[in-house]
């Protein structure tokens, strides 16, 4: 149990470390890929619009000053609104943008599972019903007539 906890902690650290490093020492390229030009609505790395050029210069200046990725993003959000973020943030109201699709997939999966369960249950019941007559004993009179018919057929 202790081994599992240690492994989980190591895995968490391994996943979080690059993100923390990226936040403390962002690169021009990653910010340009993740931020959107407010006039042409493409990412900065694909835009040559005047405001995109100004934003790139501002990012370069702030990186040189040692600003973190989240600081730079927040400053640009303050200037141009949250639509400059290529991907929504994972806290506050923006979390809905992540939660709703995932929730939708979860609900759809649950619906599919429920449907499959109902379908397989209905099939089992159907099989039981269809097997029931053959398992039940035949009426003696009917049994006698079947024997007679078979004997006549054999003759």
């Amino acid at each position, binding site marked *: 149990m202790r081994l599992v906890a240690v492994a989980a902690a190591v895995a968490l650290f391994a996943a979080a470390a690059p993100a923390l490093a990226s936040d403390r020492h962002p690169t021009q390229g990653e910010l340009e890929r993740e931020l959107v030009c*407010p006039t042409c609505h493409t990412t900065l790395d694909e835009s040559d619009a*005047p405001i995109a050029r100004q934003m790139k210069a501002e990012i370069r200046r702030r990186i040189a000053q040692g600003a973190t990725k989240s600081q730079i993003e927040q400053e640009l959000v303050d*200037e141009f*609104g*949250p639509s400059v973020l290529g991907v929504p943030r994972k806290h506050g109201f923006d979390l809905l943008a992540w939660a709703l699709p995932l929730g939708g997939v979860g609900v759809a999966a649950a619906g599919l599972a429920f449907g499959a369960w109902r379908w397989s249950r209905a099939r089992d019941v159907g099989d039981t019903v269809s097997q029931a007559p053959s398992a039940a004993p035949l009426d003696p009179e009917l049994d006698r007539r079947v024997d007679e018919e078979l004997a006549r057929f054999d003759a």
Partner: protein
Amino acid sequence: MRLLRLLAVAVVVALLGLLVWDMAQADGSKVAKKVDQGQVVAAPKLVLPYHDRDGSFDLAAQRGKVVVVNFWASWCQGCKKEAGALNAAARYWRDKGVVFLGVDVNDFRSAASRFVDRHDVAYTIVRDGPGSTLGKWGVTGLPETFFVDRKGRVVPPHVLAAATREQLDEGIRRARRS
């Protein structure tokens, strides 16, 4: 099972509502189109923070005055070209019941401040960093200028490029007559 059906119907209704809301938002683009066709239309809501001080400018509070609404940004070449004409017109019409409003869109605040200082802008500037008003007014490029009459209606003409002094005076006169 009935609950699932109700849920599905609710989701479809919500999506339809979202679609209608989105179309209603986009409907604002008809303001510029209608004005270009010679029509007079109610001015879209415009409440934005001042560029250089606390508080907000509300276009609706300007009823009884003609308002010249100019959309601009410091990086726009046409905006630099028309700055002189706008300033001269703003100074001339200032005491005649005409308000000039510059809506700075998709711009850095610091760059806008430099523009305002360099061109000695003599009228009110408000900030719309995200450009949220552009769709409502139907602005497709910068600069663009609209004229709002005393009743709060946008009247022709709608200037789609750097405005000249003559265009500004003509627009103001038509708005005053409206």
